[in-house]
């Protein structure tokens, strides 16, 4: 079974990712593409659990409020150098107040985990050809951050200059 990093632990993972034009599995836990989920065309009763993944060009509007009820939202990084997913993560956490599992999927590499975590991801599907143990060990290269973010609600200046 594939594994992921969840809340700082390596754990087994049995969510099945449904691609944009992919077949639906017969049952189990599925991550549906956000547009498909919005369309309401999927019979969700067929599955053990439903989550959603967001393509990184998603624009979150009123409809996104319903995401709140899901146990997991994933955000896709088609290439690690495309940073749109960071903004989506912050918007989900800060604007839509999403509290459950927020997972980075796609080109997820150890050198970006720190930034992802700061933006609110607590779950990381590290690219399969890379060592997830090494990625976990390297998650926090910095013990200091200047900005307020999800891991640190106050900016550094509020701590040292206030």
């Amino acid at each position, binding site marked *: 079974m594939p594994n992921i990093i969840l809340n700082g632990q390596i754990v087994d993972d049995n969510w099945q990712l449904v691609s944009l034009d992919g077949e639906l599995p017969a049952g189990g836990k599925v991550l549906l593409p956000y547009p498909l989920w919005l369309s309401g065309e999927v019979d969700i009763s067929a599955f053990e659990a439903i989550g959603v993944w967001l393509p990184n060009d998603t*624009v979150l509007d009123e409809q996104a409020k319903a995401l709140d009820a899901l146990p997991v939202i994933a955000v896709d990084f088609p290439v*690690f*150098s*495309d*940073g*749109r997913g*960071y*903004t989506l993560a*912050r918007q989900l956490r*800060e*604007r839509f107040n999403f509290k459950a599992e927020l997972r980075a999927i796609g080109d997820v*590499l150890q*050198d*970006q985990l*720190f*930034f*992802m975590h*700061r*933006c609110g991801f607590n779950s990381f599907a590290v690219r399969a050809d890379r060592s997830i143990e090494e990625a976990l060990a*390297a998650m926090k*290269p*910095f*013990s*200091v*951050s*200047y*900005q*307020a*973010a999800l891991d640190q*609600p*106050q*900016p*550094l*200046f*509020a701590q*040292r*200059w*206030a």
Partner: protein
Amino acid sequence: MYKYDDFDQKLVDERVIQFRDQTQRYLDGKLADTEYLPLRLQNGIYIQKHAPMLRVAIPYGMLNSIQMRKLAHIARTYDKNYAHFTTRQNVQFNWPELKDTPDILAELATVQMHAIQTSGNCIRNTTTDQFAGIAGDEVTDPRPWCEIVRQWSTFHPEFAFLPRKFKIAISGTTEDRAAIRFHDVGLQLVKNEQGEIGFDVYVGGGLGRTPLIGELVKQNLAPQHLLTYLEAILRVYNQFGRRDNKYKARIKILVKALGVEAFAERVAAEWQYLVDSPSTLTDKVINKAASFFLDPAYEANPSEGDFAQQRADNKAFSRFVTNNTTAHKQAGYVAVTLSLKKTGVPPGDVTDAQMDLIADLADQYSFGELRISHHQNVILADVKKSELYALWQALEANGLATPNIGKLTDMICCPGGDFCGLANAKSIPVAAAIQERFDDLDYLYDLGEIELNFSGCMNACGHHHIGNIGLLGVDRKGEEFYQLSLGGRAGRDEANVGKILGPSLKQELIPDAIEKVIKVYVENRLDGELFVDTYHRIGQEKFKERVYA
């Protein structure tokens, strides 16, 4: 200037450890080229023509003597005994070995320096006026704001992988010396009728392939909202900036495509969720930032000593005073610009020995502080007039006193084809040929202020679009040619992109062409009129006729 505390120090120390590990993994084959590339870029390392190039950050151009000595040491130990100051107030080393770069960064960290975000698709070094804090015409000192932006932008987790690079400039004076309207974001400090400070926020300026002048997106933004507002701008850019074509990926293209009103609306829509969040600045925080930039211990009304006499007795010294010193808000003091534009030396280059000397002179004459200007010169900002003669002698003996600041031969010039892998043409030998052509100082002074800016390719690192005279290296069927444009200038209200004069010219013809342009100016100028003003008054035609006759 700003001084690190334990937090800042820890961050740069941890960065060294992180980068050492990343470089090791790359050298061990565990990181692919494409994966290492943005990591090294965000640490200022490019792979250039001959070797990697390392660009070190000089936040808003401020440097102390200890740091300058460290740069000299690095030039000596890891490079070929020289360094190059850039048009973004940073410094570059052209010959380090990749395997040495973690050690160089470790050395830099010992003097509160780094190479973080000096390259790559992220927020770059914030730039400002080289005379910040000493100019008489200042609304307020921009440097505390630069430092606040520096901290906010350093490893900002949301904006590490933007569509393209992002440059911010801040100006504290009404005469804009930071070219704010040619930056992705330009911040103009303003004062309202109640005497309160605010920012006029310009977005979407830039040079490169598509030169555009930044547009006013927000007027008189209250200062406590600076970071949340910037965050909203960056967020809109991160989400909607084009990523399919690197030549269309800068924020200027987005602003242009949407139109400035629609862009401003999107920013406002985003800002409503961010305004008053914990990143809002308080007076206490703003005052703390300002406390790092208080005036040094100036002497009140110091005697000018023999200054007047020395000036009367020595023509060379007098020329230096006229050209290389700038009025200071403090009586008895001036700011001194050391010219890195000596004929025959690549513009912006300094040797290790010169850097050591400059550091010593800063200690002796200017409170141990230095500044780098976007014109690629070095400034000693607080020199007593009584000590100017001694300082000049030391500079003169070491090739740093060329009295050409602001003149035609004080050109801005990128490294070009001699060093840069992207160049279409060489810039350094052509710059030298122009300097040689205009070596008569009296003639040069008679011409007055003329900005000549030179880029080796469309990337416009030499800011050729905003030169009164702009030169651009182009490739014509494998041959190096140069395109001449006239009439560009920075400045908040008169910002203008130069207009191409005609077909590009061969290298040998450039000094002649510039001379012809200058002759047209001399023949047509009104009393006291600057080159750029004459050009805009009489138009392009006369210049064109002469050059292409």
